[in-house]
């Protein structure tokens, strides 16, 4: 070994930190320290112009997006609120009330919508969540890819197609009647992909470190999933379920095909037609020129919006109660 390389080695043996500091100092002296005054003024004119343009475009887009939202809400509230103030709206049905008459209520439709939504959720939430758990925690290879692809396709199926599919199976093939449960089946087809996709995203957000932390304690995988992963993702899963529920509650095509409107209370899912809010809205829409029907239509629309809103609030409250603690 020559003398120079030995000296270099000796220098290189200085602590890494001291060498780093020395290198930084040298770089600072060479490049950063100048006698020029620092540039503290705002950027160039073109840059400021770009900033202004971006700002205007952003606010304009926001304003534009808000217009239909506020408009719809304003119209529905303004035209529909009056009937909702009467207690009869929440207690009576439309039985024996002609389209041109005033009076009666929407309790038959409210009940139908709530029952169908509950049954739809009871079927599709477990199916959707278990599918998402499979995809995120277990699924590997071809089967998982196939399932994921199928969910994608399902989420692209128009509601009328889902309804016609159920009609083809339920009515044409098996010869059953058009009943509330058939409506639920078609709504399940529409709700499952929403629940799967949102739950999947939420499960993916759970840091892997938590799963590993649990495994490292000798906790089996299924307990890790049920006691660590699901609770951590709970609030997100609830939000996803609520979004899915909101979607199916406003769905109309399957109801028109499988669940025709009636004016009386009908709570049996397995016998007879079942009225719902969307079909009630549609029914009154057809009574053109009748002020009483128009008024009922707006009131029913507002009722539907309020129910979805209430469900969302309940969901948020539940999510907040048992979720990640801060």
């Amino acid at each position: 070994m020559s003398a120079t390389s030995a000296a270099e080695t000796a220098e290189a043996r200085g602590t890494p930190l001291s060498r780093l500091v020395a290198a930084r100092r040298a770089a600072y002296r060479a490049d950063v320290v100048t006698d020029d005054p620092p540039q503290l003024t705002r950027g160039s004119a073109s840059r400021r112009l770009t900033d202004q343009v971006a700002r205007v475009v952003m606010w304009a887009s926001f304003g534009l997006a808000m217009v239909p939202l506020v408009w719809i809400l304003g119209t529905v509230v303004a035209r529909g609120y009056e009937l909702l103030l009467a207690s009869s709206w929440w207690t009576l049905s439309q039985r024996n009330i002609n389209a041109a008459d005033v009076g009666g209520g929407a309790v038959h439709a409210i009940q139908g919508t709530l029952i169908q939504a509950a049954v739809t959720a009871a079927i599709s939430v477990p199916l959707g969540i278990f599918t998402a758990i499979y995809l995120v925690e277990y699924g590997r290879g071809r089967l998982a890819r196939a399932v994921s692809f199928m969910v994608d396709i399902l989420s692209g199926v128009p509601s009328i197609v889902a309804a016609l599919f159920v009609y083809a199976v339920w009515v044409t093939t098996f010869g059953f009647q058009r009943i509330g449960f058939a409506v639920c089946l078609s709504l399940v087809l529409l709700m499952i992909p929403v629940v799967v996709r949102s739950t999947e995203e939420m499960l993916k957000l759970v840091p892997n470190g938590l799963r590993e932390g649990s495994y490292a304690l000798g906790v089996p995988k299924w307990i890790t999933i049920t006691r660590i992963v699901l609770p951590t993702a709970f609030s997100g899963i609830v939000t996803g379920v609520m979004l899915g529920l909101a979607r199916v509650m406003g769905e109309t095509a399957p109801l028109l095909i499988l669940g025709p409107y009636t004016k009386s209370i009908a709570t049996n899912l397995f016998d007879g037609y079942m009225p719902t809010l969307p079909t009630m809205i549609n029914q009154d829409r057809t009574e053109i020129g009748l002020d009483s029907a128009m008024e009922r239509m707006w009131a029913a629309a507002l009722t539907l919006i309020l129910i979805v809103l209430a469900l969302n609030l309940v969901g948020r409250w539940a999510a907040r109660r048992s979720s990640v603690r801060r």
Partner: protein
Amino acid sequence: MANRLKVEDVNIYYGAFKAVEGVTLTFEPRSVTAFIGPSGCGKSTVLRTLNRMHEVIPGGRVEGSITLAGQNLYAAEVDPVAVRRTVGMVFQRPNPFPTMTIFDNVVAGLRLNGLRNKSELADAAERSLRGANLWNEVKDRLNKPGAGLSGGQQQRLCIARAIAVEPQVLLMDEPCSALDPISTQAIEDLIEELKTDYMIVIVTHNLQQAARVSDQTAFFNLAATGQPGKLVEVGPTPRIFEHPVHESTEAYVSGRFG
């Protein structure tokens, strides 16, 4: 001593990729072993094979034998879940369970394995938190969220959680790399104390830390990116730092690379 952990001729793969090759090592009970080496050399991979955590990553598998007290951890009849109860692990980033309180975090391993008795859980929680030098800081707020603690406290909470299930071996994967010097000091003091009850294996990028806390040091290196990592040399810590046999060990511990 009986409860030695022995690694013999171990090759580790991720799918077709051979990550680590030909590792042979023995760990003594009540001793601390440090794994050092440049990034990507397989330290953490070897550590994770000691409690079969590498199997969590798809395609992870092992050739060779790893025995604890003479029992092969990779024998067909061995349950990886049981292995992890015996060989606990603390990770680089503190990972307290965010939905749980401090108390629930500490007893998570016991509770999720079926222990329901309240007084036993309370005892275990206090014992583990004292063991992790955290009791005095959190005893008045056991019902507060674990995620609300500082980083160093969270890491000690994770150590408490790991020792609550009473493992024989404690693996630590760079436990101080996300912590400030004071918290690092606290963890190092803790390692010194835990040594009297557990066998500890620690991966660290901090050479001074390896020199301070370990009895035995293993230096890993890899020839080039894409090549498998290898165990270059293992021995008592003072010897590895003062009289390393291999040139690359010498270069690494004197700070010339890595």
